[in-house]
Each structure stands twice: as structure tokens, then as C-alpha cells.
């Protein structure tokens, strides 16, 4: 469950970032278009990470302790990255300031 939330957060941030920047550049003028584009990007990137890469397996194995200390380190580092991006997005509406 935690892993799903983590992957969902990552893909949500990605979609918000992409659509946000595209909107700033003049695309997706309407709210509906932005929502549709954001949802699509989120779903596609989620499917990509979960089904076509072993990213989820890595997070799972790390989280359950199967990879030892380095697994926890990877989870911690990824969590820090996500927290920083969430914080940036709330404050500056962009992932990287």
C-alpha cells in the first residue's frame, strides 16, 4: 500500500509538473483540458513505472527490508526527493526552484 502511494505521488507530481508547464506555455487553456491531460500523463507514467519497469519491485523489496540497509537508504532518499518536490509545488507551483 505504501509503495502504491509512493508511486502514485511520483506520477502525480510528474503529471502536474508537465501539464503546469505546458499551461504556462499556452497549452490546455481550459480546466477540462488540463484535467484530462494531467490524468492521462499520470496514468501513462504510472503504468510505465509499474508494468514496464522494475521500479515498484525495487521499492517493495527495499521497503520490506529484503535489500538491507541500502534498500532503506534508497527509500529514504526517494522520499526526501518527493517531499521536496511536493513542498516546491505547493509553494512555487513548480518541482524544481
Amino acid at each position, binding site marked *: 500500500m505504501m509503495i502504491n502511494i509512493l508511486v502514485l505521488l*511520483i506520477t502525480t507530481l*510528474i503529471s502536474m*509538473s*508537465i501539464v503546469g*508547464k505546458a499551461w*504556462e*506555455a499556452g497549452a490546455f487553456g481550459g480546466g477540462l483540458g488540463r484535467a484530462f491531460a494531467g490524468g492521462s500523463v499520470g496514468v501513462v*507514467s504510472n503504468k*510505465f*513505472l509499474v508494468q*514496464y*519497469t*522494475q*521500479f*515498484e*519491485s*525495487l521499492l*517493495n*523489496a*527495499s521497503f*520490506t*527490508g*529484503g*535489500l*538491507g540497509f*541500502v*534498500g532503506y*537508504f*534508497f527509500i*529514504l*532518499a*526517494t522520499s*526526501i*526527493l518527493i*517531499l*521536496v*518536490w511536493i513542498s*516546491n509545488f505547493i509553494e512555487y507551483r*513548480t*518541482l*524544481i*526552484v
Partner: protein
Amino acid sequence: MAKKGKRYFTPLTFNLVAVIWIIGFLPLAVAFVSNVGSGGGGDDLNWENTTKEYTDLRYGEGNSPIYGDQPLCGVQFNCTGVELAWDSNGVDRTPIYEYNNPDLDGFDVDCLYIKNGLCEGSFDPDYNEANSNYANPFYDVRDCDTTAFFFQGQYISYNQEVQYNCEFADPNWSYTDPTTGYTDFRMSYDGSTFWRGQDTHFALDQYATSANVSDGTYVGDSGDKFSFRLNELMMNTLPHREMVDQFRFTIFDYPDAPLANPASHNCDTYSGWEDLEISTQLTIEVEGERTKLSTKYITETDNKFYIEAQPLYFTSGCYIGYEVIVDLNGFDTREMYNVANGGKWNESTMIVEMEFERTDGAPLGSTNIGFNGMDDFAIAIDYVQIDAQQVEFTTNVGLIGMGGANIVLAMASTPYWDPFKNFFKGRI
């Protein structure tokens, strides 16, 4: 030359960097680390045969099982389980058997269903081994209930003394039958030793009083999700303190009689050949605690398994069967090893879960998958070993590298540090 003061690395650029990192580079790095920590495929793999190693250990190298020799867990109540046993034999079809056979006693069908290694069903308080009406308690399904009752919850073992129904496979491949030449040879094919397995269901009229059985036929399907367990004795054949890179499960439906010409399974014309997608997931159990490995491994195959002629056993032809290869990624290899307390395989059991789908989208139903039904099947289990230090080193370096890169990216995402700006400052 760029104009002075123009920003090449805008927030948009950095956002692109972030996106490329997460959905581009990071998954690639994960795949790279995982594959480097895995032995990969190819024909030059050094497959070791678990079923052969165990048979050698027990009977002496190259020797055949002796007729009448029962598996380690024959009729004893204090045994620790058979080597290969069903953990789940699919969907519970007991109500259908009961409906088809209204005269059956309730306990006659209790043991048809196995879940989490336990035979579901009620305990028969009237039964005791000494007074059994059955000539050979070895075949008495009610033993299963008895032990399930006494040892409920201890699903690692104790419930598998009775070979029928609870059994998955045993090393006693054959029984002497002079009329057919079906005799006590270990069944070897293509370098592997096969064991005989009991299908998911069992013919009612072989253990219930025949007068009670009005319809002993197989109900037609057993579901699409099954699991079986390798106990500590089987796992002990894996290399101590080493990691396993791949498993191969070769399964095929053994014909009713040896040397039978599988005419109904003509390689070209038999209508039962189907393309399958088999999802396999492994679980390691140590001291009652189960840890499911992270990845489901998909095998796309058909159910057509060609076998060259083997004296006493097979005529050449196509049989129902397939190979399932589980090529563990580096993370699963390592997780499996760690869960087993650093490769102490003799203290762990492994549950192999297989889920079947037809690739044409049709329900699996009665599609033949080798072990559904109420006859026999053959199974061989092979593995490939991989150097534990190599896997640990590769995954450690990879994970530290990726984790470190994530932290650097997190720092670079804040307003307090801009590595790109500093790096390019004064240069462009």
C-alpha cells in the same frame, strides 16, 4: 556565443530534468542494476536439477526408487511434511461433488480442497487409524482431516502425511506393473529427474465406498490459480549460503498408461492446444512467516510439450505441458536470500504460486494445464545458482548510487543550491 545574462537553465528545463530522471533514467538504472545482479538467460546456463539431487540424496546417486518405499511422510503422524505438496489446489469444488453424489458421507469429500497448505474440512470424530475400514490408511483421505484438526494453523507441515489429495508430487515416480512395463525406474528426461504428481482433484470412487459414488468424474475445472510448496528437505538441495538466479518448473500431463500413444494429442490436429500466460510468484516461508517476493514473472507459452521417445515411458509426441522459467531479478534474488537468513535453505520453505490465463481472452475453464483433473502429472524443478557476493555488490553500489542521486536532485530542487547555474557560471 550566448548573449550575456540569458538563462539557459530555466525552471522549465529543470522540470524536464526531473521528469527525465524519474521516468527515464531511474527505471533504466533500476533495470540495469537488477539485470547485472541477475545471471540473465541464454543456453549456456548451468541448470541444476533439484528433483534429481533430492532423489540422489535419498536413494543414492543414479539409483531408482525402490518399489514399496513410501515417501518420508508415509502414515506417520509426526512427520514434517512431504517434499512437494499442494499449498492451494485451486477453487473449492466440494459443493459440486457433494451435489453430484448426495449419498456420500460428508467427510468423504472434505479433503478435496487445500488452502494455505491445509486440507479444509471437518474432523471426523469417529475415525481412528487403528479401526479404519480402509485397508491402507496411506490412502485414507480422512487422515488429512485428522491432522488438519490437530495441527490447525501450522501450515508448514503436518497436514501432508496422506499422499492422495494433499500430495503434490513425490520422488516415487513409478510402481511395478509387469503387464505394462511400468516399473521402478526414475523417470529422467533431458537431464532432469521428474517426479510423479497428483492432479488437483481425486477420483471419488477410489477412496469412498463405491456404492456411495454416483458420479466420480472430474467436475471440469479447478480454477486458474494454484500453488505448491517445496519443503525444507527440497530447499536443502539449493546451494547453502548461495543465491538462486533462476528456477525452471517443467510440468506435463502424464498419460494414463506408459507408452500410450498420445494420439489424441496430435501435435498438429489436437484441438486442446492453447496459448497461455502464466504469472508466477514465489513466497519464502521461515518459521511460519511468509514473505512474498516483489515481482510476478510472466511466462508466455502454449500447453504443447514435445517429448522424444523414452524407453519404458514415452512414445515421442506432443503432451500437455510447458516450462515455466522464473528468472529472478537481482532484487528478488537478494530478498529471497536474506529472508532465508542468508541462504539457509534447509530452514525455509518456498511456495510457488501460478496463475493461468488464456491469451485469447477466453476463460481458462477446462483448458488443460497439465495438473488439473484427477490423474497424474510429471514435474521437474531446476535452478541456476549465482554468486552471492556479486549480487550484493552490484545491488549495493546501484542502490547507493541511485539513492545518492535522488538526494542530490532533491537538494538541487531547492532554491538554496543550483548546481547547474554554478557549474555553468562564467562558462556560457
